[in-house]
């Protein structure tokens, strides 16, 4: 517990020697209070350590192994592996007709969705934090997406092929009859010659607003909790000094909440990568349990996918930590 002890552990890898001294009796560190506390603490997190080694590291290694091997099912129910260099990765990236394409489209969708979700959830959280009639009712409804967008629920109706067909038809009907407001607006604006690509993205967001609201349940809660932790006296002081609401939003609200942007950004990326209606995940599942039972390629695909996800989280973290620092 002492400060001296804490100082030693500035890096995770510094702890190995101390670990040995603290856990193995027969030296003078072992009997100290710090060592006793350390042992108790380790006992507390022991379930996690066991689980991590047996149900995470071992399967991960196994899956990595599979992704580097040609895996064939034996008749008795076992596996046979034959080293085939990086053929599985090569197959996934270069030969498989869909994987590349799905990966790119999903990443594109993710980029837009993450930004839109962050903005949307922030705006909604700011509004829900204000005082108005029916606020509690609104809160109840806005957290419903936490329930309604979990697990099977979002994918189940769209995974029905017939449904897709039907919605395509109804879309085309709407387009031809001109009921679709956003499409009409888009036509108008694109005629007037404003940068059309930007508008494409914006209209995509507007059309997907239902998905975005459904995906931002947790994010709204996180932002709201951040907003509620800002002390009201800050706003009072700003008001007394003649700050307008707009100014105090940018000078108080935004900097105070911006650390939560990182949490939300990471959460949104992960959430998006693991969603049931994600086509890459569908493809991986099909390759694994479909007709071919191609475990090697499926593992390679999921490793590529995991790598991409990790890269995106890294990039997101980098950008946001930079952006947030500039506000301080």
């Amino acid at each position, binding site marked *: 517990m002492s400060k001296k002890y804490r100082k030693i552990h500035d890096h995770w890898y510094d702890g190995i020697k101390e670990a040995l001294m603290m856990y193995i009796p027969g030296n003078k560190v072992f009997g100290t209070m710090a060592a006793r506390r350390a042992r108790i603490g380790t006992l507390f997190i022991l379930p996690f350590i066991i689980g991590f080694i047996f149900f995470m590291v071992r399967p991960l290694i196994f899956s990595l192994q599979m992704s580097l091997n040609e895996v064939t099912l034996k008749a008795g129910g076992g596996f046979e592996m034959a080293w085939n260099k990086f053929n599985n990765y090569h197959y996934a990236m270069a030969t498989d007709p869909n994987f590349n394409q799905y990966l790119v489209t999903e990443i594109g969708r993710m980029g837009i969705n993450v930004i839109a979700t962050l903005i949307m959830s922030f705006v909604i959280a700011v509004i829900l934090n204000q005082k108005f009639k029916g606020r509690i009712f609104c809160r109840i409804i806005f*957290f419903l997406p936490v329930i309604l967008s979990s697990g099977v629920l979002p994918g189940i109706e769209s995974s029905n092929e017939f449904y897709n067909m039907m919605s395509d038809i109804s879309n085309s009907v709407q387009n031809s009859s001109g009921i679709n407001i956003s499409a009409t607006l888009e036509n108008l604006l694109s005629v007037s010659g404003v940068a059309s690509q930007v508008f494409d993205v914006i209209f995509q967001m507007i059309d997907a607003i239902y998905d975005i609201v459904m995906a931002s349940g947790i994010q709204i809660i996180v932002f709201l909790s951040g907003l509620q932790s800002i002390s009201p006296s800050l706003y009072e002081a700003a008001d007394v000094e003649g700050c307008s609401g707009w100014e105090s939003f940018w000078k108080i609200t935004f900097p105070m909440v911006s650390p939560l942007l990182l949490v939300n950004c990471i959460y949104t990326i992960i959430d998006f990568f693991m969603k049931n209606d994600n086509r890459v995940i569908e493809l991986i599942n099909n390759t694994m349990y479909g007709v071919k039972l191609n475990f090697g390629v499926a593992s390679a695909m999921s490793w590529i996918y995991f790598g991409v996800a990790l890269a995106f989280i890294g990039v997101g973290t980098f950008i946001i930590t930079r952006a947030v620092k500039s506000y301080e």
Partner: protein
Amino acid sequence: MSKKNASVNSSSDFWERNRRSEGYLLRRRIKSACISIARALLMFGLCFMIIQPMITRFSMSLMTERDLYDSTIVLLPRHVTLENYKIVADLTDFPRSMLNTLWISIVISACQVVAATLVAYGFARFEFPLKKFWFACVVLIIIIPPQTIQTALYITFANFDIMGIFKLTTGKALNLRSSLVPYVLMSLTCMGLKNGLFIYMLRQYFKSVPESLEEAAYVDGCSTLHTFFKIMLPDAAPTIASCFLFSFVWQWTDLFYSRNFLTGYKTYAVQMSTMASRMGRYFSKDANQSIVVPNGRSLQLISIAVLICCVPLIILYCFTQRTFVESLTMTGSKE
């Protein structure tokens, strides 16, 4: 009389004050009114958007097949029927699968929350070697998509063995695939559905409790375990409850883990996702043949199943939303 007087007074007072502030007061009133109207419109729109699919599902669930294809009917069915519910209940094996889901969800979330609470307390209050490394591992399990390791886990549990013990005693490894054991084991060791997130949330909470509370207990001669159970746990109840609720809800609708580990139990989510494939057989008169079910009809039945799946959760949520929100207010704020 006095009330009327007061209102007259206040209105004349308002104009008087407005005159004195050179129209500033009026402008401000109008501005705030405009803002609140805009806000009300936005909120109404968004709330409506969230609720609307549920309303549509409900009204659709009461329609007969004829009403479904009638383009003049939008929300109110002409021929109200409850037969659809019976069909869906048959298709999803309703009361049984729901009860299965209920007790499995309770067991699993209890395991998850117990394990996560212990681990979170360990992370929040103790200094031990490699702490940063292990916490990085917690973040890692949040990030790793479970799909990456699903096959490997499947194989691990198909021939389950703890360091060759079972092989020595019984001659072959255990097959745990269709039992609840693997999943309970995973939940107890924090590797279940979104378990890393619960550790993170609870750790954040435990860190926010002042250390002096525990120190006082230690000074009075309380043991570590005693302090944990008598002092930390009672205060943490709301946060733990909200973790339990999250876990429960996610488990209720989970497809991934149920499909991989709980093949022996018919859970509602799995029944729901495979419902479409059973429709053809159900609607044909002959048990050995299947017919093609019209698109709209199958969609209608699926959305009824979704509705049935959501209703218990929504009811649960309405009663517990205070716990959901307030405890998150406490955990999320500290970075």
